[in-house]
């Protein structure tokens, strides 16, 4: 479904370019780092996603960065609402990995 959309959406673009949703499709089964509109970030193993890039993630860590520091929350499997996502980093290990 999502790969299908990627094809449709990309049909007008230069075929030699890297299509965003294809790239996310390739991330299925591996870790992904989602940066949200707020001061939150979510890292988890991508199990699947849909046209809106709502994502099912496993083994999740939720990071909230505030002036006081960073709060971490561990979760099992979640469905993350795609409307809050700003950036997706394939293979990203989250704020801790990026800072190192």
């Amino acid at each position, binding site marked *: 479904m999502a790969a299908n959309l990627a094809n449709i959406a990309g049909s007008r673009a230069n075929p030699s370019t890297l299509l965003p949703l294809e790239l996310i499709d390739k991330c299925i089964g591996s870790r992904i780092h989602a940066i949200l509109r707020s001061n939150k970030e979510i890292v988890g193993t991508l199990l699947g996603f849909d046209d809106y890039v709502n994502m099912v993630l496993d083994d999740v860590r939720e990071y909230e960065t505030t002036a006081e520091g960073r709060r971490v929350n561990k979760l099992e499997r979640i469905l993350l*609402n795609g409307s809050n996502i700003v950036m997706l980093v394939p293979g990203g290990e989250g704020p801790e990995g990026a800072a190192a």
Partner: protein
Amino acid sequence: MAAPPRTNPSDFLKELAGRPVVVKLNSGVDYRGLLSCLDGYMNIALEQTEEYVNGQLKKKYGDAFIRGNNVLYISGSRTRK
């Protein structure tokens, strides 16, 4: 190369129906309860709902309806009975 097993959002939601879930809103408030149903906007109906603000139980509701635009994530709780 075998494609990794995938669970799309709709598959995940089918698994979750009738089970205990945690729904986190953008405001940081958590709702815990049994998922009775939901739709494509992520509007959610919960039973035996508990409202947590700052991790503290604030209120209980028999049935609750959450408008989907406020939802940050839905999480199943495997550990919970």
